[in-house]
C-alpha cells in the first residue's frame, strides 16, 4: 500500500507519481460487467463501426476510475477525496498505454480542513491529454 501523504509535506507544483494503465478489450468487458454500463460501443466492434467510430472505445467512466486511483494512491489511506472532476475530451482505444498523472495546484485550509487541489490528466501514446480533470483531497497533518 502506498505510504501516507501529509499536508505539511505537500508543495504546489509537486507532481503526482505516474500511474500507467493498459486497458484491454477484456478489461472493458470486465468494467462493463462491474459497472453495469453495457453500451455496445465498448465491446461490439460492428456496433461501434455503425455509430461512426473506428472501433470500440474505452469507457469514459473507466478513465475516471483510473484518475480516482491516481489520487487515492497518492493521498494514502488516511486521506479523504472530496471532489473528482474528469472531462472526456478525446476518445481512447484499448491496447494503448494511458499515462495518468497530475500536479498540485493549491494548498489551503478551509473550515478547519487541510486541503490540496490537484490538476490531473490522462495522456495517450501521442502525448495528447485526452482526459483532463481536477481533484480536491483532505490530507492529515503530521503530529506535532
Amino acid at each position, binding site marked *: 500500500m502506498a505510504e501516507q501523504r501529509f499536508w505539511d509535506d505537500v508543495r504546489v507544483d509537486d507532481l503526482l507519481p505516474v500511474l500507467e494503465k493498459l486497458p484491454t478489450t477484456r478489461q472493458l468487458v470486465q468494467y462493463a460487467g462491474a459497472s453495469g454500463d453495457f453500451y455496445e460501443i465498448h465491446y461490439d466492434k460492428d456496433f461501434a463501426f455503425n455509430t461512426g467510430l473506428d472501433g470500440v472505445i474505452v469507457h469514459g467512466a473507466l478513465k475516471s*476510475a483510473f484518475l480516482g486511483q491516481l489520487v487515492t494512491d497518492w493521498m494514502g489511506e488516511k486521506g479523504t477525496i472530496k471532489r473528482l472532476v474528469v472531462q472526456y475530451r478525446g476518445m481512447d482505444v484499448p491496447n494503448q498505454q494511458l499515462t495518468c498523472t497530475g500536479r498540485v495546484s493549491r494548498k489551503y485550509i478551509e473550515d478547519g480542513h487541510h486541503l490540496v487541489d490537484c490538476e490531473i490528466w490522462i495522456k495517450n501514446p501521442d502525448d495528447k491529454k485526452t482526459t483532463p480533470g481536477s481533484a480536491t483531497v483532505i490530507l492529515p497533518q503530521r503530529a506535532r
Partner: protein
Amino acid sequence: MDKTLKLTDDVRQSLIGREGKAMSATVEVGQIRRFADAIGDGNLLWIQREAAENAGYRDVMAPPTFLRSISAAVPSVPELSHLTRVLDGGSEWNYFAPVYAGDQIAAVSRIANLTQRSLSIGLAVFATLEVTYTNQHSEVVAKQRSTIIRY
C-alpha cells in the same frame, strides 16, 4: 428521423428537473471487490476489511467512482429519442461521506440542464444529469454530475 429538430424552449423547460425513479441497493463487499478488480486498483481499503479497520474505517470502502455501479434510473426522455447516439462528456463527483460495504444506497437522477450545440458530428444535445446518492442514515454520500451528449 429528423436530426435537425431543434430543442425548443418548451421541450427544454419541460425536461429540466425531470427525475428518474429512485433506485436502492445494498453495497455488497463482493461487488466492491469486483469493481476494484475491473479497474485494476489493488488498494487494500477496497478489498480487505482488516486493512480498512487498521486504517480507522469501519469496513471495506468503495473506491471513488464505485457508485457508477449503483445504477440510477435515468429519467425517460422520449422527446430526444430521435437522437440515438450517445457520448459521455465527463463527470464531476462531490463526496460528503464514505461508502462502506453493507451500506444501503439510494440513487436518484435528475436532469439539471440541457443545451443544444452544433458539433462536427452534427447537432447535439448536451444534458447535465445529476445523481444524488443517499445512505441508510439519510446522509447524502455523494453527488455526481455527468454530461451526456446525444446526437
